[in-house]
């Protein structure tokens, strides 16, 4: 029994133990060089997480799509098809790299690169376990939302730089959509911040020791999910890359690995948004002690991603003026009402408990 507890403790703190060991290799465990090494290693770990997530998700999307239509999805390569992504990646790398003639070359080429960097930057502040955030920033939530809103600019760059009317339409839709949904996204997170009095993601997770915030803030969770789906350009809000109207929107003129980078960036952003939802609303790395903390975290992220895919393959696409109506006339007032109710709740709680 005690060895079992000891084993679980070690597994839980595995990465912290490794980090301490690496720091111990230096003469002064907190010197500039030790910090620098740890930062580089953290960076590499985050990159690996993003790339792994993107690779697994490409296949998972096709599998889930198959299951909803009573098909097995890709099942030829590897055991039950799980090596399909390697074939997809090789295929994309082998394609011809075409830049349209009248395109603005610098903007055209930079857009996919930036969009692939964003998930790496956002996933660096999320705590994967106790004290296991690669970079611990005091303004975690604000940093997260700020960085993820740079993707609006990337879509506009891709849409304008392609010199194509379909891309321009898609790019304009992207700007309108993503700007409108930033505000409900941020406001729905403010309720949680008011309860925990801190923007730091580690503190938010530890404040959920007794009860996860999805119970205290159900309305904020729903608003966050809807606004998150709209930020990620996933169905039912995927007008930007609507196959049936604007042939792939801003991505029309991209081939080969450039398009692959957009794709991976979208899946990376999806992982980042799910990770934020799991951290802020579902309790992060906390869970019964049978499994290590990071395993609970990734299971919660997996559940959120599965729900996003489930919604994608069920609902039709929404129209652009309904989209705007939803953002400005429904979600924004609801999120402000949520802040009001949270404030009232905190006041009453303090009054009852403190007085």
């Amino acid at each position: 029994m005690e060895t079992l507890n000891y084993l679980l403790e070690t597994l839980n703190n595995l990465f912290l133990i490794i980090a301490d060991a690496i720091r111990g290799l230096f003469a002064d465990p907190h010197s500039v060089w030790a910090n620098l090494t740890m930062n580089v290693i953290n960076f590499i770990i985050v990159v690996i997480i993003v790339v792994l997530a993107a690779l697994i998700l490409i296949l998972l999307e096709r599998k889930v799509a198959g299951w909803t239509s009573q098909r097995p999805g890709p099942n030829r390569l590897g055991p039950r098809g799980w090596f399909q992504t390697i074939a997809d990646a090789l295929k994309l790398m082998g394609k011809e790299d075409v830049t349209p003639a009248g395109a603005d070359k610098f903007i055209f080429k930079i857009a996919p690169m930036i969009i692939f960097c964003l998930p790496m930057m956002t996933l660096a502040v999320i705590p994967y376990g106790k004290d296991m955030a690669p970079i611990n920033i005091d303004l975690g939530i604000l940093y997260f939302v700020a960085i993820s809103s740079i993707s609006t600019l990337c879509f506009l760059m891709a849409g304008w730089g392609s010199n194509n009317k379909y891309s321009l339409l898609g790019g304009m839709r992207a700007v309108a959509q993503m700007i409108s949904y930033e505000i409900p996204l941020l406001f729905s997170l403010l309720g949680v911040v008011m309860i925990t009095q801190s923007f730091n993601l580690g503190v938010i997770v530890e404040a959920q020791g007794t009860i996860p915030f999805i119970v205290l803030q159900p309305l904020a969770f729903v608003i966050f999910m809807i606004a998150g789906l709209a930020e990620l350009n996933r169905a039912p809000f995927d007008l930007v890359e609507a196959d049936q109207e604007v042939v792939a929107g801003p991505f029309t003129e991209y081939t080969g690995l450039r398009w692959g980078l957009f794709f991976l960036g979208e899946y990376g952003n999806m992982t980042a948004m799910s990770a934020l939802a799991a951290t802020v609303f579902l309790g992060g790395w906390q869970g019964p002690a049978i499994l290590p903390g990071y395993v609970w975290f990734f299971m919660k992220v997996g559940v959120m991603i599965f729900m996003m895919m489930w919604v994608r393959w069920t609902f039709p696409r929404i129209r652009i003026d309904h989209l705007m109506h939803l953002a400005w006339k429904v979600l924004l007032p609801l999120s402000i009402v949520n802040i009001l109710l949270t404030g009232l709740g905190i006041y009453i709680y303090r009054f009852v408990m403190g007085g």
Partner: protein
Amino acid sequence: MFGKGLLQGLGITFKRMVGPNITEFYPEEKPNLPTRVRSSMGLERDKCISCNMCAMACPNSVIKLTSEKNEANKKVLKTYHMDVGRCLFCGLCTEACPTKALKVTQDFENAIFEAEDMHWDMIQRAERKRKVE
């Protein structure tokens, strides 16, 4: 309440996700086609009386046959060609045959690499099929 239809849709999709798959795993399991499927034509040389009814029934002049008279002054089939590139696979030729020498077969794997392979010599194909069996 708003959203009831959405939840119903999610329920249907979930039920199908955890349910059985209906895919047929071709080419590991080849399908069993019904006997009347017009995927290909086959000629039985012995039953053919060279009446030319099939060539006359065809909308697109796909069939060309030649015959000669043997010792008993009866027609015997010499060559029988079908230009499958022009064929509609409509089955009018098989219906027109009075002795049922030309029949539909269920071979559906008819893909070829060269354009010349679209001229089928039906007698040769019958020989090849008999040798395979």
